[in-house]
């Protein structure tokens, strides 16, 4: 099939988003370099939502010349990612309002390009497309991480991110190069058809390339031992960018791990599966333990969220390691991803609000938040309880589903590790809650007024967290209905 007569209309959402990103970029130039530009933020949100609608309209199945694939899986993840980026931009509008020294237009267009990269990644059916999408996302993220260029922590975090991110790309590519060499194709679908026989002939090389790719992707989704960058970059980056990294980058990374491992490396009748499932199980175990234990020692809220994010990545690995039916694991991960996006972004909206108000990002900035803004304190508690996996929040259902899927696959011990580490996580999540409810506010902290954008984000996230906690059927029925 030639690329010329392929159905390029499948790529409409990506093309539209690319054009809109360029338009916003251009408008930024036309309106002067500096100054506040909230209208660009609103335009970006609209652009993302328009794209999300286009993704939904375009949701049928199809491929473009085996390099670009549109299916339910990609549609679902794209919508999650686009909504996530839109929420991040809503949070950024408050942040940029408070920080005049940041160039505003570039910030928004970089976010849009990053979103475009994430969309390409999710839809890629070819190693080259995958790499391009990955790098588009990564390079935009590097710029965003170093966006406060007069701030030492920001630039220091950014350079770490660039160096380690580049290394991770090299690992992924090195793994890919062997897959290509042994098959003569870069199409994921073609590789998946021959991988079983390939594995019989060259078991060592195949396993090695899997491991190299796992290491590289592991960096993107920040799993132990490839998590070292996360706390540093999270702490240094502007808070909305931290939110972006912990949600969009991570979920896009998971999408691609699922795509590559569940199409390519499953092999026919799962012959290859036994080679990597136990590795992922061990990585998940270590990730959950290390992430949660180090989080206990943190005093800085952004670093805490970084380690909590590491731990959450570990939870999300559990259904990948414990496969009963692959499509079932995908459903579990999608549900938890949705839940995770809303809980984390809600939490980050409040973190942005509080840390920008006090100018500090240690725990003490949350002292007595209940007295300063009861709504925000309650909402933050709900998000943290959700991340900890306590009842009546969506996080509880999400985690319970992961446990049940692990039990179905017979990996009770993995569910055990996950549960015990979740209990450890109570300690630090409740530590923040304690600050908000049981400590007195700092003397010079007055009543906290939330701007509209933050209030809207928090309210939406709160509604989703609670509604999906009480009536998860709304989402689960829909996910289960889709054929992967």
């Amino acid at each position, binding site marked *: 099939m030639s690329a010329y007569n392929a159905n390029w209309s499948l790529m409409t959402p990506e093309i539209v988003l690319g054009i809109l990103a360029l338009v916003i970029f251009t408008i930024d130039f036309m309106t002067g370099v500096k100054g506040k530009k909230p209208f660009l933020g609103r335009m970006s949100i609209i652009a993302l939502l328009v794209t999300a609608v286009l993704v939904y309209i375009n949701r049928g199945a199809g491929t473009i010349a085996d390099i670009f694939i549109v299916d339910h899986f990609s549609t679902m993840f794209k919508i999650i990612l686009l909504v996530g980026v839109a929420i991040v931009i809503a949070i950024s509008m408050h942040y940029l309002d408070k920080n005049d020294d940041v160039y505003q237009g570039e910030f928004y267009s970089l976010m849009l390009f990053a979103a475009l990269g994430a969309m390409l990644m999710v839809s890629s059916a070819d190693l080259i497309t995958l790499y391009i999408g990955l790098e588009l996302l990564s390079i935009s993220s590097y710029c965003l991480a170093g966006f406060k260029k007069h701030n030492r922590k920001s630039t220091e975090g950014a350079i770490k991110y660039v160096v380690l991110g580049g290394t991770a790309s090299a690992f992924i590519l090195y793994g890919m190069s062997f897959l290509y060499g042994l098959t*003569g194709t870069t199409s994921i679908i073609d590789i998946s058809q021959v991988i079983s026989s390939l594995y019989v002939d060259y078991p060592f090389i195949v396993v090695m390339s899997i491991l190299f790719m796992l290491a590289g992707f592991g960096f993107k989704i920040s799993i132990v031992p490839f998590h070292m960058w996360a706390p540093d970059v999270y702490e240094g980056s502007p808070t909305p960018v931290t939110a972006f990294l912990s949600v969009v980058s991570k979920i896009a990374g998971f999408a691609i791990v699922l795509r590559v491992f569940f199409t390519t490396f499953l092999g026919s009748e799962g012959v290859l599966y036994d080679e990597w499932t136990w590795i992922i199980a061990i990585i998940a175990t270590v990730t959950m333990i290390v992430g949660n234990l180090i989080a206990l020692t943190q005093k800085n809220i952004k670093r805490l969220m970084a380690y909590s994010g590491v731990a959450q990545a570990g939870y999300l690995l559990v259904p990948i390691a414990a496969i009963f039916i692959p499509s079932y694991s995908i459903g579990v991960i999608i549900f938890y991803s949705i839940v995770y996006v809303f809980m984390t972004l809600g939490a980050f909206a409040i973190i942005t609000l509080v840390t920008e108000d006090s100018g500090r990002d240690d725990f003490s900035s949350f002292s007595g938040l209940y007295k300063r803004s009861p709504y925000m304190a309650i909402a933050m508690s709900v998000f943290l309880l959700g991340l900890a996996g306590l009842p009546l929040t969506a996080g509880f259902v999400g985690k319970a589903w992961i446990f049940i899927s692990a039990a179905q696959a017979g990996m009770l011990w993995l569910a055990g590790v996950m549960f015990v580490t979740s209990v450890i996580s109570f300690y630090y999540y409740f530590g923040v809650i304690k600050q908000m409810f049981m400590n007195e506010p700092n003397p010079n902290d007055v009543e906290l007024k939330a701007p509209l954008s933050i209030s809207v984000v928090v309210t939406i996230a709160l509604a989703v967290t609670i509604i999906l906690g009480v009536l998860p059927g709304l989402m689960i029925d829909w996910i289960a209905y889709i054929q992967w």
Partner: protein
Amino acid sequence: MVPITLYLSLAAILFCVGLYGVLTRRHLVIVLASVELMLNAVNINLVAFSSIGPYADITGQVFTLFIISVAAAEVAVGLAILIALYRNRESIDVIKHDLLRW
């Protein structure tokens, strides 16, 4: 004809040298150069496979071109951040960048 294993070995050695450089060098410019070295190891692999591999075809070289251009973009961003860092800290020595720890 030179067997493909020699090319692959060269690439493997380059990759290791690059990784070693990333992990141990203190000068950030050299660290970035080491990252490039790793990417170029991949390029050698791909080109070797695409010309004398078991399933030789053109895709590998296309992939290489993509990697070269994307890597250039990546390094451009890296160097830009490096300059910003230098302005802030008056140093590009890795050891001295220790604000963020644990």
